[in-house]
Every structure is written in C-alpha cells, then in structure tokens.
C-alpha cells in the first residue's frame, strides 16, 4: 500500500469535469424510471407508449382508431415490435423529433385529458432498442391526401438529445389491418389511407398472464370501446433454430403463413368519446415557481389581465380582489413582479375563494360503456358501474369511475372465492399494470370496509372473492408516482373520490349478494321442507286409510302451500 496523497482537486480541475447532462443520458442511466427495468417490462412499456400515442393521435384527429400490435421474435432475447395505426400521420419534419428526442411533444404544456403527458415514452422506447440492439427506430407514416408515405429511420444522439436520421425515403405504403374472428377466421382486410407505423427492435422477453402485453391490450380494449385492436405475437420455437425457416423466399419481415394468427378485439361502439377540452390552469393548482414563470411569460401587459387571461375561474373582479389582497397594483407589469411580490401574490391567490375549475374538460368512459367493457371480458352474475361527478385536486379537475363485477364462480379459473379480488386500474383510459402496491387505487380499495358489502377481507388488504374491481381516473393531469406512469400518487382528494365510488358499487353489490343469499336460503329451506312432505302424507295415509290418489293430493296441496307461503313463520 503505497501511501499516495491524492492530488487535491481545485476548482479549476473540477470545472473541467463539470458539464451538461442531457436528459437522454440521464434516462439512459435511469431507465427504470421510464419502465424499462427488465426485458419483460421493456416490451410492455414499448407497446403501451406506442398504443397510447396512436390512440391520442386518432382521437385528436377525430378518427375512430384501428391499431395493430405485431410482436415478432427474431432471436432468443430479441424482438421486433411494430405498432400501426390509422391516425392522421405525421408530417416529415416532426417525425425525427417525436421518435428520437426525449421530452418532445404536444401534451406537456397543456391542461387537457390525454394518455400521454410528458413526451418521453416512445422516444425512450426507441432509445432502449438502440441501446440493446444498436438498431434504429423505423417509422412509416402517411398523412391524409399524401401521394406516398415517408420511410424514416432515426437514432437518438444521447449526448445532445437530438435525432440522427439514418434513412429518409418515400415509399408506397398504406396501413393494413386484418380483423380475425374469435374462431380464427380472417375477416375483410381494412386498409387506411393514412396512418403511422413504428417498428422498434429490442432486447425483450415475452410472457403471458398478468402484466403481459396481451393483458394490457385486453384491458385497453375494455376502456376504449371505440378502439379496434389487432394483436399478433410470433414466437420462435424453444430450443430450436435461431429463426424459423422461412417457407418462401419472401421478405424476412413477412410473417410465415403458418405463424400465429391475429387476434382482434372488436370495436364495441362506432363513435369517438366527446373530445376533451383544453383548460387553463386553476390558480389553486399552481405552485410558486410556476406562478413566477407564468407571470414572466404572459403576453398580458397588466397583472390584472395576466391573472384573468392565463387562469381559469379568475374574472376581472376576482383578479382585482387578489391584487388588493396582495397589496399589488393591478396595473403593474406582470413580468416585473419581483420575487417577494410574487410570494404575496401566491399567498393572496390561495386565500381567495375561487370557483372550482371547469370539469367539462374531462371525458369519462361512462357507466354504460364501462359495463359493456366488463361484460365483454367476463361472464358475471352481477355488474355495476358508477361515474363520480368531477372534482378537483390541487386545482386539477379529475373524475373517478368504478366498475365492479361479481363473476360467476367457476367460470374464471383465476377468480376463485378465496383469491383476492382482481383489480384493473386505469388512468385516462390507459391500463396500469405495474406497481399496484404503490397506487392510490389499491390503497383506496384496501381502505374500504368490504365486509359490510358481503365480501371477505383480510385486515388492511384487498377483499377476497370472485370479484373484478375496475377503477378509472380521468384528469387533465394524472399525478403518477414516476415517469413510467404505473401508479397514481396518493392525493387525499383522489383517494377519497375513489373510495366514494367503490362504496357506491359496494352498496349495489351488497344488495345483490344479500338477495342471492336470501334466494339460496329460500331454496335450501324449500328442499328441506320438500323432504318431509311425503312423510307427512304417508302418516296421514296410514291413519286415515287414504288411497294413493288422496295421498298424492296431500303432497300436491302441501307443495302448493309451500310455493304460496314459503311456509315461513309469520
């Protein structure tokens, strides 16, 4: 151990090492934050991000969505994932940025209910593919009325967080979809004049069951009844050759004819949900830093105008009130508001009573459609759904919907009477599959006293029974616990709303279970009574020397009596 005094760093030497960290680099190192912690989850996250984007794009453009998800295994741990939609397409200039630049998107800066929020997801998926396979993200896109489609391949320059375009050509391409009936028979092919296809090659693992791609798509179809979804997973034979021998000398990308067929989740309704409206932020949901930024950025020239123009629920009069309370001149230039003054402004805003933010910006699934979705998924003895009125957390409007199904016992193997209830969580129509334990939905469900609704419930956990509980939160800004958007943060307002929804469904369930129990009890009593009726008749026959016919009459009279009065003690 040679004693060597480490050379002390000086400010100058340190300065040489200090440099920018790009978001791309940051997320490359922290890919778990985006949902790419393991190969299995990476596949799901990729599909999820692409489908979310496709749905958002279709809905914004007023197109009834048709989406296909095609997963093809090309190596032991290598998959090619292609998601195609019939959306509006993307103009050439935007394609590289959308797919190969983190934190680029249209949804971050606005307050409007949509699936995507940050503009990270799909480029992160491309980055993950690039990292694990070195392959570029391939995009095909055709806008309405265009003569040809763009074929662009991009990679992300992680240092600079900018796209590198590897290929940029025009090709003949139209999105094609292959509807397939439940029996596997192919239906008529659907060809769209516009749409986008993104194909990413990545290291991944394919699994079935809970938290699988299939489960995600299934749940997606439940909460998006207007979506027609096609799915196919072509896997290599285990322990076999690296690749299946191509039966024909066609393109390698062309699936083998004998490969697994498409599965179609058919559309339930033929109209789009009403488009959500973009709203301005509500003053009570704005933090000090953001308030200062908004004051700086506002195009308004007076404080009063800035307040009433940039926020919802602030009228000119209310803006005056706020200024007065804060001791500020309403005619002051908002960009000149100093730090101390903005603190006073912030305090004044929070002390002022304001109308709650408008809630017409939300687009809930609706009780009818929730029930339809659940019914499609399972045979249930009892279904109920409730859409709560919209309300507000931290100035953000949100709305909770709860669906509950009591499944016919024995019909679904995984829904036993002794199993915990199956929970389906959704945020802005996106299924949440991971991190159930950290989610406020799970917390709310465990917090409800299900025993009073007729279900068993171990202390502090989910109820047990053949029950499916579905919770949807719609909001202009869903507070996820992380960028991978897997769990809803624990806001008391949100948990309270979910609890109310659950309780409403629970009460319906209790009525159903009570009635069912009563009927079962009645049945049991009836058969018990029926057991003894012949004996009573036989005894009377012996004593009164009745004929067989008379004996039969006694039995039938008693049965009539039983039907009529249930022989209840009253």
């Amino acid at each position, binding site marked *: 151990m040679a004693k060597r005094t480490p050379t002390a760093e000086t400010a100058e030497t340190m300065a040489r090492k200090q440099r920018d960290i790009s978001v791309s680099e940051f997320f490359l190192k922290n890919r778990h934050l985006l949902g790419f912690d393991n190969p299995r989850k990476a596949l799901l996250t990729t599909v999820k991000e692409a489908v979310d984007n496709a749905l958002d794009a279709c809905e914004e453009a007023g197109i009834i969505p048709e989406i296909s998800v095609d997963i093809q295994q090309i190596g032991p741990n290598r998959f090619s994932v292609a998601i195609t939609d019939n959306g509006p397409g993307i103009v050439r200039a935007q394609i590289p940025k959308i797919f190969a630049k983190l934190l680029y998107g249209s949804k971050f800066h606005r307050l409007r209910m949509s699936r995507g929020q940050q503009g990270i997801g799909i480029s992160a998926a491309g980055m993950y593919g690039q990292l694990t396979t070195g392959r570029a993200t391939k995009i095909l896109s055709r806008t309405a009325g265009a003569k040809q489609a763009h074929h662009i391949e991009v990679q992300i320059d992680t240092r600079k967080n900018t796209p590198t375009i590897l290929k940029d050509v025009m090709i003949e391409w139209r999105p094609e979809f292959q509807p397939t009936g439940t029996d596997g028979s192919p239906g008529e092919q659907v060809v769209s004049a516009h749409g986008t296809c993104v194909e990413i090659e990545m290291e991944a693992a394919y699994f079935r069951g809970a938290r699988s791609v299939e489960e995600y798509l299934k749940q997606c179809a439940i909460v998006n009844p207007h979506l027609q979804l096609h799915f196919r997973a072509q896997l290599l034979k285990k322990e076999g050759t690296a690749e299946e021998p191509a039966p024909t000398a066609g393109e390698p990308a062309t699936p083998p004819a004998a490969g697994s067929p498409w599965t179609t989740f058919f559309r339930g309704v033929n109209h789009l949900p009403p488009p959500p409206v973009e709203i301005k932020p509500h003053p009570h949901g704005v933090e000090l830093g953001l308030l200062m930024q908004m004051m700086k950025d506002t195009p308004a020239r007076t404080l009063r105008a800035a307040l009433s123009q940039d926020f919802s629920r602030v009228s000119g009069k209310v803006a005056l009130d706020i200024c007065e309370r804060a001791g500020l001149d309403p005619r002051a230039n908002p960009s000149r508001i100093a730090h101390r003054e903005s603190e006073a402004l912030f305090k004044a805003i929070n002390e002022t009573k304001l109308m709650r933010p408008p809630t017409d910006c939300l687009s809930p699934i609706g009780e009818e459609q929730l029930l339809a979705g659940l019914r499609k998924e399972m045979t249930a003895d009892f279904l109920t759904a409730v859409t709560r009125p919209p309300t507000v957390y931290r100035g953000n409007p949100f709305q909770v919907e709860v669906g509950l199904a009591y499944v016919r016992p024995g019909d679904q193997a995984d829904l036993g009477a002794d199993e915990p209830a199956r929970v389906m969580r959704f945020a802005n129509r996106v299924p949440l599959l991971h991190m159930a334990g950290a989610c406020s939905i799970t917390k709310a469900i465990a917090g409800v006293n299900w025993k009073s609704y007729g279900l068993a419930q171990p202390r502090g956990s989910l109820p047990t029974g053949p029950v499916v509980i579905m919770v949807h939160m719609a909001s202009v800004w869903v507070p996820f616990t992380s960028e991978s958007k897997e769990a809803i943060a624990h806001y008391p307002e949100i948990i309270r709303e979910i609890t109310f929804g659950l309780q409403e469904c629970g009460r319906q369930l209790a009525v159903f279970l009570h009635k069912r129990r009563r009927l079962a009890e009645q049945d049991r009593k009836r058969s018990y009574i029926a057991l003894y009726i012949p*004996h009573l008749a*036989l*005894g009377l026959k012996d*004593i*009164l020397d009745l004929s067989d016919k008379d004996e039969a*009459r006694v039995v039938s009279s008693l049965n009539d*009596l039983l039907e009529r*009065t249930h*022989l209840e*003690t009253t």
Partner: protein
Amino acid sequence: MATKVKKKKTEKEAGGETLKLVDKQEAGQRIVGISRDIHNDIVKKHRKPSMRFPVRALSNVRYDLKRGHFEIRGKMATRTLTYNTVKTFAQSVRLMATTKKDLLDKNDIAGKREIYYNSKSWGECRFDEQPESDTLLDDMEAMLGINREQLGYIPEERGGDVTGPLTVLDQNPVTGETIKINCAKLGSGAWSIPSRVEHLRFESKAALILVIETASLFQRLVHHVFYEKANCILVSMSGVPTRACRRFIRRLADDQKLPVLVFTDGDPYGYCNIYRTLKVGSGQAAHINRYFCVPQARYLGVTPQDIIDYKLEDATHPLEEADIKRAKDALKNDPFIQHHKEWQNTLNQMLKMGVRIEQQAFAKHGLNFVLDHYLPEKLKKKQFLP
C-alpha cells in the same frame, strides 16, 4: 255392554281421582280425529295445518288445593306447519300412525327406545336421538289427553321396589288367573312394581306406607325387617319416582286408606323434585298429574332441623351451585312451595345453613341409628312437612 260395566267397576275401585280409562278403539278414534283436521286443513281449506296441545311446564300448572296436586292450566301450544316445524310435524304424524297401526290396532306394546329404533325405517324422518322421540311421545300424550301407557307404551325404567305387610293380587297375563304376592315373605329381596298397575288389588294390615329415596337405605331396613317393627309397607323409589311407582303408591294408599310418609336426602333435589313430584306431580307431565300424584303424602325427613337436632353438622356437605339455584328457583316459581309456608321456611333454613345431608348420614351415630332411633322417634313425634 260388558265392557262398560267393568269400566264402571274399575272407576269405583280406584276411588278419589280416577284414572279415566280409554279403550284402544277410542284412542284410535282420537288419533283419526286429529289427523282428519290436519288433512282437512291441507286439502280442503288450503291452509297450514296445526296441532294444539297443552303447554307442559311448571309455568302452566296451578296447585289445586281441593285435589291436592298440580293441575294443568289452559295454556295451549300450537305447532303450525312451517319451515322450522316441518320435521317434527311429519314425525308427529308418523308417530301417531305407528301408534294407531302397530300398537292400538294390533293390541301390542312398545318401549320408548323401541319406538326410537322403529323410526330408523322412516328415512329422513327418523329420530336422531331418543330424547327427540320421547318429547314427541309426551306431546302426543298431551294432545290426545291419554297417558302413553294406555296407548301401549311401556316405560323402560324400573318402577320401584316394595316390601312389607302387603299382599298384591295380580293376574297371569295370559290366563287371567289371580296370583297372590305376599310382600312380607320375600326374604331379603323385594317385589318390583310393574309398569301397569291399574289392574292390581291389595290386601294389607299395615299402618302406613314409608317411601324411601335410596336403594341402600331400603336394603338396610329390609335386612333388619324394619317393616315388621313399624308395621309399614316400604317402597323404594331410587330417585324421582316413575309414573308407575307414583300410581302404585296412590292406588295402594287410596285403596287401603293408608298415610304415606316420604324419607329422602335432605337437599333441594329431594324436596323439590323427588317429594314434590310424588305428591303433586310435575310441570313436564302436567296433563296427567291427576293420575300420577299422591296428595296424601307427608314429608318425614331429612329436614335441616334434623341436622341440628341429631348433631349431624359434621356429616353434611356444602350446598353446590346447582342446589342453591334449584332452591331459589323453587321459592320463586314452584306453585307448591309457594303455597306452603313450611316448605319456604325449610328451604330458606337450608340456604342459610348452606349445607345438605344424605339419608345415610345417620350412620355417624352407628349403622342402625336410623332405624333404632331416628325413624321411630320421627314417627312418634308425627311432625311432618306438608
């Protein structure tokens, strides 16, 4: 006509409260009548059939002073056909059917336990435990107003033992020939009271009947031929007296105009269950008490005062929880105890002393103290409890 005459004669013989004899045909008719009502309810009136019978409990009896026994009051229980009663209802009907068809019509007899086993052929309707069939048998007896012995049911328990200066005139069950049994000439044994005693006749020169609770004390008295010395008929009950035993004592006492004295353990069970039941009947069998009671009985001992008088304090046992409860219950609910101040005093004295005493306790002063001193002195003093 012949039967009618004979019946009258029996009534006269029995004297006092006469056991109303019902011939098998009439018993059968009553069963048919009840069944017809049930049948009519079901088939014609289309309503839930029901059975009515008197409530058999201490709460539904009153102490009839004139007759000297517990008489049933009017409270009736109704068993309507419902979910809760359907099994018992069906069982009752089948029990009546069996009674009529197999016992009355065929002139046969059956034990309670035999009937219980007979029900095992009834399928779901069978009795699971004998207490179930016993209860329904009691219900039926109350409903028909005919004691079960007359329906052909014979008790299984022993009726009691008799020794002393008494000749019982019985009959050979097959030939009808009269058989004379001299109960003074049975050596160290005793004559067992049969389950049916209506046909017995008596000849006796005894001065009284002494009824004893325990068999062991009875044995001692027989061994020392106490009955000759005291000129009494000794009857051993072995606990609560059976119906046959009660009926036998009653008939014998009525017939020979003999006083009846009772000697039991000195505890609430001996007072309130054994003695009370012998004298005035029980709540359970309230509907037939008038036949199965001995109103002329008087209580000899052991009384709490005897414990003091005979210095037996160190031969006692502390009262148990159940004893105390029994005594308090009797003071509160038993119409017989409530009527007799002496009995209330006795029970209260016992509760105050907190001890009970057995008949055998007199052995403290010597094995034969009880027959050399206690009984002769008590009989001489003639201070008995009512």
